[in-house]
């Protein structure tokens, strides 16, 4: 969004606020309809004590709108009501709306509601001369007085026109009727059939009703029907001017405001784990912001559901209420499949902290999906939601409709502070950073999964494309689905970029081999040294023993020499002794 558009949007919001204040100040009295969502877009309901025209094609929900207006007026606002039907009888009406949670016979029995059927059959009537509709006035007046009605519905004006031929007179009488109704102090709904092409009622009833006109539409797009509601006119009051999708389900009409008027969610600084420790690490170590919206995109089989299930599993185990919508797998299938990667969702389901809802995306239109999600959220009040996958919605509506629907979904969850994780399937061949519905700009955190083919194999890669308001890793991580959950590992960063899978393993292996070789070399050196040391030591020993033997032989020689000397000396002394007593002998001998 450019700066100027932002500025304009801001100004518009400010203007809206001022307008709302002005209206509230002006005191235009409004009668709340009690129809879910309708009172929000009209800022309080229909103009009190004035007639409102509700028009639409056949089957657009006009009669139901009127009946619900009366029934809710009785049950929620204590205002009795009269239903004047020109087509169906009380029994038929009661039967038709019984499945929508409206118990008309009970309201009638409690004297809170009157259903008056007026059949105007052209066959039965013949018009001769001047007449007026005083009979109708009297009957309506009588019904109003009988229960003190504050609300009235006339369904439908076309039936009256088809029964009588003098339309000029009828028009002036209807005009008189509306003026008369204003005087009666009742809030009225008049239904009228409109032509498909122009959106105008067949009899131009808009001319008479100047206060409020509600247009109901029922369109079929690619075999899926979508109901829409638009307030084409609301004199003296601000109102939402868009076409609002609405749905009819077991609790009646539910109008879904496309977007809240302003971005006023509270942003917390609380963080919560993604359920994957290494992914927490990539998101500044703390995981997602509480109440934020997380988008997980990826091609088929890239592990989107696993990332979502991790988050839901972790949160539900902490005891936080979690809702998981699956538009592709059944509950049992999810439980079984997630168990294969070590995530057991069953205990949480049994404990009531996790609810898995499954449906086919094409089962009904987008607004119905949103309505169902809306209702489930209101009923279960979860803290975390996983929707798997949102890309399937594009099959149930056009791309722009899907975006509008997802915008409202994100608005809804954000305004309730629910942390939402949505998966989105990227079609094969599309760049990984695109979503068909262009929803990525709505999201706070965007995790991109891919499984590129390289070296004859596919390896999952996870990266955080964006994550508003927190530091996050810029790295690609290889994602492994192990028997104990998702594991993110740093891919090997080689000269030719990141390497994953077998390539990473082979690089790792060659590194390992190198280390082993080095070790062997060292060991060999050690051994060499040891043997040389042994050799030298042996030599030393030998030399030492030779030295010793030399020393010994020397000592022997010394001792022998000494002995010889001793013997000589002894001989000499002995000879001396023999010579000394007889010197003659000595002479003789000589």
């Amino acid at each position, binding site marked *: 969004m450019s700066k100027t558009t932002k500025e304009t949007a801001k100004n518009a919001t400010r203007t809206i606020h001022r307008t709302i204040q002005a209206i509230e100040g002006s005191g235009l009295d409004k009668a709340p309809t009690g129809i879910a969502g309708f009172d929000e877009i009209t800022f309080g309901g229909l103009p009190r004590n004035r007639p409102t025209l509700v028009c639409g094609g056949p089957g657009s929900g006009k009669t139901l709108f009127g009946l619900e207006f009366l029934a809710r007026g009785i049950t929620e606002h204590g205002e009795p009501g009269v239903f004047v039907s020109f087509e169906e009888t009380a029994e038929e009406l009661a039967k038709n709306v019984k499945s929508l949670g409206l118990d008309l016979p009970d309201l009638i029995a409690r004297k809170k509601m009157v259903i*008056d059927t*007026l*059949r*105007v059959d052209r066959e*039965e*009537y*013949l*018009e*001769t*001369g*001047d*007449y*007026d*509709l*005083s*009979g*109708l006035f*009297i*009957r309506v*007046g*009588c019904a109003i007085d009988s229960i003190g009605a504050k609300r009235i519905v006339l369904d439908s004006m076309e039936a*009256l026109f088809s*029964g*009588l031929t003098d339309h000029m007179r009828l028009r002036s009488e209807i005009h008189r009727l509306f003026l008369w109704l204003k005087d009666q102090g009742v809030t009225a709904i008049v239904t009228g059939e409109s032509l498909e092409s122009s959106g105008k009622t067949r009899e131009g009833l808009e001319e008479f009703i100047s206060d409020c006109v509600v247009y109901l539409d029922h369109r079929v797009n690619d075999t899926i029907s979508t109901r829409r509601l638009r307030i084409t006119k609301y004199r003296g009051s601000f109102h939402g001017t868009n076409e609002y999708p609405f749905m009819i389900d077991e609790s009646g009409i539910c109008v879904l405001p496309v977007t809240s008027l302003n971005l006023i969610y509270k942003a917390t600084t609380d963080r919560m784990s993604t359920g994957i420790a290494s992914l927490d690490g990539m998101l500044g170590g703390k995981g997602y912001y509480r109440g934020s919206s997380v988008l997980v995109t990826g091609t088929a089989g890239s592990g989107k559901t696993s990332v979502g299930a991790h988050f839901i599993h972790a949160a539900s185990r902490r005891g936080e209420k979690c809702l998981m919508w699956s538009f592709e797998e059944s509950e049992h299938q999810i439980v079984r499949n997630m168990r294969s990667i070590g995530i057991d969702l069953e205990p949480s389901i049994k404990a009531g902290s996790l609810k898995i809802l499954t449906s086919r995306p094409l089962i009904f239109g987008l607004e119905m999906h949103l309505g169902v999600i809306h209702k489930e959220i209101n009923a279960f009040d979860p803290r975390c939601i996983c929707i798997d996958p949102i890309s399937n919605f594009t099959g149930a509506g056009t791309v722009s409709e899907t975006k509008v629907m997802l915008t409202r979904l994100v608005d809804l969850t954000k305004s309730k502070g629910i942390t939402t994780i949505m998966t989105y399937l990227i079609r094969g061949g599309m760049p990984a950073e695109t979503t068909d519905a262009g929803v990525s700009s709505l999201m706070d955190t965007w995790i991109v999964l891919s499984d590129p083919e390289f070296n004859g194999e596919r390896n999952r890669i996870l990266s955080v494309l964006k994550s508003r308001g927190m530091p996050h890793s810029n790295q690609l991580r290889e994602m492994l689905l192990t028997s104990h959950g998702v594991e993110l590992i740093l891919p090997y960063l080689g000269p030719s970029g990141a390497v994953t899978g077998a390539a990473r393993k082979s690089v790792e292996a060659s590194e390992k081999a190198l280390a082993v070789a080095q070790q062997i070399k060292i060991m060999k050196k050690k051994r060499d040294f040891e043997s040389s040391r042994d050799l030298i030591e042996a030599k030393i020993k030998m030399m030492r023993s030779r030295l010793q033997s030399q020393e010994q032989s020397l000592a022997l020689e010394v001792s022998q020499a000494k002995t010889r000397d001793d013997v000589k000396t002894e001989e000499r002394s002995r000879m001396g002794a023999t010579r000394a007593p007889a010197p003659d002998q000595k002479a003789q001998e000589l």
Partner: protein
Amino acid sequence: MIPGSDKSEIWELRLYVAGTTPKSIAAFHNLKEICTTHLAGQYTIEVIDLLENPKLAEGDQIVAIPTLVRKLPEPVRKIIGDLSNTEKTLIGLQIRPAKARSAS
């Protein structure tokens, strides 16, 4: 056989009005004149003022005022307006068949 040609038949007519407005007075006079002319001695006219008895409007499904209801002879016929168009009223009451009008 044209209804009304049987002189013994009793015509039970009911005229719904809302107060004594010029329209209701005109309707009553027009009806009285038609009856005296065509059904002398074989009719009863009951005038019901819905302002006095609003509940009675339900029975004959009265929307417009004035409304003339032919209760008898059967089937029930309803004619709305002040009956100023005598020809149409006669056809409506089936005193004169619709065919007769085009023939004359």
